[in-house]
């Protein structure tokens, strides 16, 4: 085959694109690790496909999941995606920690180029393909239930968002087996990511993976803002909305306004790389400062996109497991929205060291510290929620308590970093790395895990193993401290981030401590999987069919577990905050109801998977310069969207009789079930019906 034909068909792909060939040509530990990872992707994919075929799961997979427009299933798929990506990125983290602990005046196991890819994929995945899918998944599952809606505002768009995000994640996974990833870090600063310095496919993988993710996220934000503004059930005024839905609203608004700068920054970088534009190059009037500003104009609100949903989870969890209404609901709402607004005013603190005037730096430093006020208010609101409550130390609650105490430390180092002169001393060091992990592990991951454990019984109808939940908690907590406290110290000692090798023997004990921590964190991940396995195995004895295992307060607990496809047989009417709890106290939560009517639900659609697939093909073609694939993908994508606009038969009706029968059966079951007291809520006695708490006890 001539070189031209090859290029026309396969673009830039050649033998060296495959890590196996690279490992054959250059047999080093580093290349073997790369080849092993590539092999894992290939073998994993083949194994999965074979299993699917063997078990005849293809049809159910597409029928029940991939083409489904049910927000609950889409939510679960998002969280599965997050779990897969978390596993990869955490393994990468362990590998990096291992490298640094071995590479004090020694070569270690990972070559510099490989190390750079590791920190780039680790960051990119954790932000865009772990955190974002996780929180979007929780939104998807919980928000419509909390606001008494049958679905999101735009169910098809929701499926498209998921598939775009999954496509981006797919690209990052493919880069393990074909080609390489960017070495420019998760922020991809040019000119280092320009063709002059990285002519290969690495930054292109990064650009297009991020682009797919950011488009998906923008659409999700749009969808949830419209859902929360327009689909709340009658009587559910904004100020009666549960806190998690409030944080979802705030996050959605942030997504709508913060994602365009990222989309633009990566698009401009792509124009530089593909068409020779000069936005961020060193020559001909390019200006890296534009990129840095655009990126952090997205990047800082992004921090709150990540953290606010976890704040929402904590608000729900702490209130439920203290059997108390949330202290300072109004303050929490105000604080959330204030954080949302302020998050757009502080982006410059990511580059105090760029040489702005002291006035500019000081102004942004003060704006940054201002965010500490609403955040502090939130912390105190949660603490006072426990005051005069009945606190139970379940796994989600333990994560919440650990969050409060750990997050405060991260907040303190955040204040230190907000002060420009101090930032000059620790910027780009592992102090900074420790700081943002100290914010994001408690402020995001603990929250997501707590939310997952808290709502799992709602989604699947049985509780997760409490024992393994606590083991996981112990690992995540101790692992965090051991892994990141040493980095604070190392950062104060001037150790730069992203170092593949180190030359200071004094660093070694601290790096060894950190690798122990990283291994414990990995143990935390494994414990989560074990917990899932054990819980599925023992599911029969842990079922909570009535749907309210935690004696919680908001509407999602007022329906069966798992909920029916249409969520609410009858759209609830709400007249106060925590209306479901109020009904429970009056023993009216499960009384007979009616009349029932027909319910129209969206039919399944292939458009989501097709858009995801064609967009990914388009992006893959762009990465490798396989132009026919790019054009084909692009045209097919829009053809699918346009064809869909001609489809009129998009809903199917669930007859009232069917709805009524299911609902009556559930209400009768509730009547026949013994309510469980809080002391026994983590035992098999818990069938999802709460025994009413005495309303007040004086000490």
């Amino acid at each position, binding site marked *: 085959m001539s070189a031209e034909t090859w290029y026309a068909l396969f673009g830039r792909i050649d033998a060296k694109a495959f890590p196996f060939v690279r490992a054959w040509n250059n047999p080093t530990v580093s290349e073997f690790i790369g080849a092993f990872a590539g092999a894992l992707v290939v073998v994993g994919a083949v194994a999965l496909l074979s299993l699917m075929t063997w078990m005849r799961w293809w049809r159910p997979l597409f029928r029940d999941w991939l083409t489904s427009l049910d927000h609950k299933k889409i939510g679960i798929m998002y969280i599965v995606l997050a779990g897969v990506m978390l596993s990869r990125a955490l393994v990468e983290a362990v590998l990096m920690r291992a490298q640094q602990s071995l590479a004090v005046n020694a070569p270690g196991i990972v070559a510099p180029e490989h190390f750079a890819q590791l920190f780039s994929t680790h960051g990119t995945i954790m932000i865009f393909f772990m955190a974002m899918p996780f929180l979007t998944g929780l939104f998807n599952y919980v928000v419509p239930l909390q606001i008494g809606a*049958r679905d999101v*505002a*735009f169910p098809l*768009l929701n499926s498209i968002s998921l598939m775009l995000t999954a496509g981006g994640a797919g690209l990052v996974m493919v880069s393990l087996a074909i080609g390489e990833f960017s070495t420019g870090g998760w922020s991809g600063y040019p000119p280092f990511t320009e063709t002059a310095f990285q002519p290969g496919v690495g930054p292109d993988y990064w650009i297009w993976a991020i682009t797919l993710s950011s488009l998906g996220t*923008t659409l999700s*934000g*749009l*969808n949830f*803002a*419209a859902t929360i*503004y*327009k*689909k*709340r059930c*009658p009587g559910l005024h904004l100020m009666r909305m549960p806190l998690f839905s409030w944080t979802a609203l705030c996050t959605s608004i942030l997504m*709508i*306004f913060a*994602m*365009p*700068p990222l*989309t*633009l920054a990566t698009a*401009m970088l792509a*124009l*530089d790389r593909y*068409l*020779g*534009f*000069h*936005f961020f190059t060193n*020559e*001909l*009037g*390019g*200006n890296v400062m*534009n990129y840095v500003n*655009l990126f952090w*104009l997205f990047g800082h609100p992004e921090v709150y996109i990540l953290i606010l949903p976890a704040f929402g989870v904590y608000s729900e969890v702490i209130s439920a497991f203290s059997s108390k209404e949330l202290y300072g609901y109004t303050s929490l709402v105000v604080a959330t929205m204030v954080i949302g607004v302020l998050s757009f005013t502080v982006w410059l603190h990511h580059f105090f060291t760029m040489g702005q005037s002291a006035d500019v730096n000081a102004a942004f430093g003060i704006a940054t510290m201002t965010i500490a006020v609403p955040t502090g208010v939130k912390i105190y609101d949660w603490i006072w929620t426990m005051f005069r409550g009945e606190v139970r130390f379940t796994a989600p609650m333990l994560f919440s308590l650990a969050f409060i105490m750990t997050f405060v430390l991260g907040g303190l180092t955040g204040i230190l970093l907000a002060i420009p002169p101090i930032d000059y001393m620790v910027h780009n060091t592992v102090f900074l790395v420790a700081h943002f992990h100290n914010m994001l592990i408690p402020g995001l991951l603990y929250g997501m895990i707590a939310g997952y454990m808290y709502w799992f019984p709602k989604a699947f109808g049985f509780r997760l193993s409490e024992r393994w939940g606590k083991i996981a908690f112990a690992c995540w907590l101790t692992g965090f401290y051991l892994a990141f406290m040493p980095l604070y110290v190392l950062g104060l000692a001037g150790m730069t981030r992203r170092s593949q090798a180190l030359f200071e023997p004094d660093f070694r004990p601290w790096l060894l401590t950190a690798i122990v921590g990283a291994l414990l964190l990995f143990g935390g991940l494994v414990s989560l999987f074990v917990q899932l396995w054990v819980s599925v195995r023992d599911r029969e004895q842990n079922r909570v069919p009535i749907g309210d295992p935690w004696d919680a307060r908001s509407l999602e607990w007022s329906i069966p577990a798992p909920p029916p496809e249409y969520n609410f047989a009858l*759209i609830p009417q709400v007249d106060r905050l925590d209306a479901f709890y109020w009904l429970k106290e009056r023993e009216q939560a499960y009384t007979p109801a009616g009349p029932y*009517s027909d319910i*129209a639900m969206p039919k399944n659609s292939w458009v989501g998977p097709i858009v995801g697939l064609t967009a990914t093909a388009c992006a893959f073609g762009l990465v490798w310069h396989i132009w026919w694939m790019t054009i084909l993908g692009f045209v097919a994508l829009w053809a699918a969207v*346009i064809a869909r*606009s*001609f489809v*009129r038969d998009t809903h199917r009706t669930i007859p009232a009789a069917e709805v009524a029968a299911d609902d009556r059966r559930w209400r009768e079951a509730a009547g026949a079930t013994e309510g469980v007291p809080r002391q026994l809520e983590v035992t098999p006695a818990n069938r999802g019906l709460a025994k009413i708490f005495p309303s007040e006890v004086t000490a």
Partner: protein
Amino acid sequence: MSSPQLRHVGLNLVGADALEPGEAETDLYGFWIFLMSDAVLFALLFAIYGTQLAATANAPGPEAEFKLGSAFVETLILLTSSLTFGLAAIAMKYDHTRKGLVVLLCVTLALGLGFLALEVQDFATMFAHGATPDRSGFLSAFFALVPTHGLHVTAGCIWIVVMLAQIAAFGLDARVKLNLLKLGLFWHLLDIVWIAIFSVVYLQGTLG
């Protein structure tokens, strides 16, 4: 679907509407949000353009390359197309024969295509002078901002064609009406963005 029975002040679906007002409201609201996100994108493109004004790197600059006359004609065409779209929206509401609507949509489409043709001609002239985006940061910014608007107009034109096909296929059912309203919002936004481009890019570039 039992959504709250709200009405949207911007929504005017008088007559036989199978669609519930609540759903129409949600749809339009979502589209407004999309437009806002799009507006942020344009705002940033303008900001980038502003920072790159001086970065001409000895390549052709605004004075040499911008033709105010041509830009002015493009402006007139695009503004007229907004007018015809507005008339089309009125025709959709009052004229039950659909003929006025279809004719006005076709006129809008023709004006949109005319605008694109003139714009492409301008770009071709610039390319012929060697004013290509790989010559300087300034030209890069120009060729990011103005063609992004052009691509939006192209998308709008395709959308008009799709809507004409849908009118042929479904008549004026509620969903077609709603999509036409969304298309109208989109088309008018492009007009507003163009006015900003005309002022910031062309007027400032040639007169300022």
